[in-house]
Each structure stands twice: as structure tokens, then as C-alpha cells.
């Protein structure tokens, strides 16, 4: 080829690469509950490795906050919440594709205490002098808070503890307050406690009225529905389940 034609050919190839590149490389926005932060960071990277060119962007917050965003048209592709109630509301609002809804993990609610604080043996002990502040996710917008509130209501301790309860924006903030010692005790998931295991101690498992289940689904308005479905399938796959298990999540029977 003569020099002039060669240059035009190279330019054409570059243009083609630049124009077609976005079509093949997609960015997946995954709205996930705060307690999934660490686990989903790993899963996101694994998914990117298996799908070169695609990116996974994590949007973390309390499940209800994520639901609000979806209802207002936030461009998320996948929604993973920390309880069925929130996913049910998403379904009712037609924000998710219900055919893609799957349960992918379970968790345990625990009561943790800050370092140096006496470990209570029963929830009733929270009424004692050593627990001035007890961190709990705000039950109006945080599933962990709802589970904890239900447990306290069932144990008839809810009203008595009102002045000690510090409602937080998400379960990780509750964990942080206990880790700092600002709250002497708090309600978080076993997986959260593991993340800060050198600063907090698990006092006891809190039995919940309904088991803690994490559902995941593709959003109705997703612009990358196919890729999003593949992400959901990946999350329920054996490899991903093993990764979740390493963080302390329990697996759910399919």
C-alpha cells in the first residue's frame, strides 16, 4: 500500500475501535445494601475479570434508601437488599423485573459490644447502667434496624430502651459507633461484626422473627438487562456463594 493509503487505513481502524468500544464495554450499576459492601466489592472485581471491558459500579446505602432512589428513577441495573420487605416494595412499585428475583444469601443478627464493655448475656441486660448508648439502624429505613426492633418488641424491651437507642443511617454506621466506643452496644449482622472483629465483640445472636434473607433482582429500567442478568446468575453461582461464605454469609437453598 502506498504511504497515503496506509495512513488512511490506520486512521479508519482507530476510528472503528473508538466508536465501537463503548458498545461492547458496559458499566453495571449495582445498588447493594451496606452490609454487602466488602463481599460485593470482591464479587464486582471477579465479575469484571470474567467480563473484560465491563465495569461494576457499587452503589451502597441502606436498602430503603436504595429503594427510594429506584422509585425516583435512579439508573441502577441490579438491586440487592437486606430483607424481603424492601424487595417486595420494589416489586409493587414495578421497579424490578420480578422474573429475575432470587435469594442469594442469609445472615444472622447479632448484638455487639465495644472493647472494654461488659458482655451482656441477654438482651434485658441492655437496661443496665453500662449501656448508655445502643446503636441500631433506623427501623424506618434500615432492614437491620427492623429486624432488631422486631426482636426487641417481641422481648418487650423496645419501649424501655427508647432513650438509649441511637438510630443510624445504615448498619455500617451502627458498627462504626460501637467500634469507636461512642455506643457501648449495637445491633449489626454477624458479617459486619467480622469486618471489625478487633474492635467489637459479639455478645449474642439475636433471633429474628423472619430469617435474614438477601434477595437480588435486575431493575425494570436497566439499560443493560442482559449483562445485569448475568451478574445475578453469577452472584448465585457456586464460586460467588463460596466468596460470600468467606465473609460469614450463610447460603440459602435455591
Amino acid at each position, binding site marked *: 500500500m502506498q504511504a497515503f493509503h496506509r495512513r488512511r487505513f490506520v486512521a479508519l481502524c482507530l476510528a472503528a475501535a473508538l466508536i465501537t468500544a463503548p458498545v461492547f464495554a458496559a458499566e453495571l450499576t449495582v445498588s447493594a445494601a451496606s452490609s454487602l459492601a466488602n463481599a460485593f466489592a470482591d464479587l464486582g472485581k471477579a465479575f469484571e475479570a470474567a467480563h473484560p471491558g465491563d465495569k461494576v459500579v457499587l452503589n451502597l446505602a441502606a436498602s430503603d*434508601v436504595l429503594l*427510594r432512589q429506584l422509585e425516583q428513577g435512579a439508573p441502577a441495573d441490579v438491586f440487592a437488599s437486606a430483607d424481603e420487605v424492601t424487595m417486595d416494595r420494589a416489586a409493587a412499585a414495578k421497579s424490578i423485573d420480578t422474573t429475575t428475583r432470587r435469594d442469594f444469601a442469609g445472615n444472622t443478627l447479632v448484638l455487639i459490644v465495644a472493647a472494654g464493655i461488659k458482655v451482656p448475656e441477654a438482651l434485658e441486660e441492655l437496661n443496665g447502667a453500662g449501656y448508655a448508648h445502643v446503636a441500631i439502624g*433506623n427501623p*424506618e*429505613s434500615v432492614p437491620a434496624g427492623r429486624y432488631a426492633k422486631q426482636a426487641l418488641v417481641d422481648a418487650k424491651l423496645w419501649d424501655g430502651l427508647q432513650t438509649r437507642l*441511637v438510630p443510624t*443511617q445504615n448498619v455500617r454506621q451502627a458498627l462504626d459507633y460501637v467500634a*469507636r466506643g*461512642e455506643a457501648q452496644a449495637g445491633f449489626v449482622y454477624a458479617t459486619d461484626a467480622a469486618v471489625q472483629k478487633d474492635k467489637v465483640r459479639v455478645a449474642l445472636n439475636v433471633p429474628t422473627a423472619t430469617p435474614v434473607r438477601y434477595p437480588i433482582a435486575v431493575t425494570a429500567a436497566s439499560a443493560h438487562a442482559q449483562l445485569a442478568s448475568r451478574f445475578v446468575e453469577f452472584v448465585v453461582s457456586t464460586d460467588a456463594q463460596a466468596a460470600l461464605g468467606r465473609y460469614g454469609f450463610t447460603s440459602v437453598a435455591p
Partner: protein
Amino acid sequence: MPVGALTPLLLTLKVALCATLLATLFGVLFARMLGRKRSVTRDVAESVLTLPLVLPPTVLGYYLLVVLGRNGAIGSWLLDHFGITLIFTWQGAVIAAAIAAFPLILRSARAAFTDVDRSLEQAARTLGLREPAVFFRVTLPLAWRGVLAGALLAFARAMGEFGATLMIAGSLPGRTQTLALAIYDAVMAGDDARAATLVWISLLLAIVVLLIAARLLQRHTP
């Protein structure tokens, strides 16, 4: 957990008023200390003191949490010597709002003091007055309008303080949940009706404050 709409309003007024008073006291003090002269040291000092204006509120909140928390430099001292905790209290909210509002008063006050005719302060000195007397009898009476304008700005800022307050005082209904926090919680909980009510109250409050500001600043214009 939610309380009526009156509680966040009263709490907001209490916190904002206390924060403004605190910020005005320190703002005037530091503005006087910075004085008229410009030097590298004074400019650096003013920049540091103005940081809360520029820092993202959550960064400010984080640093306050670290310093005022029970393991922090100031927090542990307060706890050991006075048994005082500031985290999760309305007093903590006052401190967060005061620090956020302080730079507004500092700048307004310094500008107002500099605007006072220097020869008036010099005349007071020739008449035998020491510096504090010069400040209280000449500078401050002539600069009060500028200081007040800064204080009103500070009050508005304190009323709207959200990020730093959320981190160190939390959003405890009836105790630290100011209007701004209450609106946020209502929206996150999907309670749009409550959010709307609180927003209307905030709007009315803002208009009232602006009207009062206009009257206070206009009265003595020749």
C-alpha cells in the same frame, strides 16, 4: 420513633441560636486578633480558621468525631475531668453548627473592623484608652452592623447544618434531630407527607429570619 413537627423546629432554633452566639463570640475575638495588618502569618491563620467553610461537611464531621469522641484529644479530657460526653447530644450539635458558621462571622467581622476609620481608633488612644477599651467603645459600636450581618448569615448556616451534625450528634428524635435531619429521615423512610410538612416549616422559618435581618440592618440607615 417519629415525633411531631414542633419538636424538630424548637430544637433547630435552640441549636442555631446557641451556635450563633458561640460563633459570634469567637468570631469577633479572632477578627480583633487578626487586626488590620496583613502579614503571611495572619493570612495563614485566617485561612486555617476559614477551613470549616471549605471542607465538605462530612469531613468536618469526621474530624469532630475523632477529636470530640471519647477517645479523642478533647473528648477524653472532657470525659475524664468533667464526665461530659458531646457525641449524641444537642450540645455536640451546637459545636458542629458553631464551627461550620464561625468562618462567616470571622470574615464579616474582620472586614467591618477594618472599615472603621483608623484615625478614630488613634484618637481614642491619644485620649488615654487601652486597646480593649478602644475596641469596645469605638471599633465595635461602629462595626456592629457588619458583625450582625455576619451573625445572621451564621444563623442561617447553623439552621441548615446537616453533615457534621449527623456524624457527631446523630439524628435522635427529640434530642438532636433538627429540621434538616428530620426532613432527610422522612424522605429516606418514604414518609413524603411528613417531609413536605417539615420543608414548609423550614421555608417559613427562613423567610422570617430574612425579614428580621432586613429590619435590623435597615433601621439606622441615614
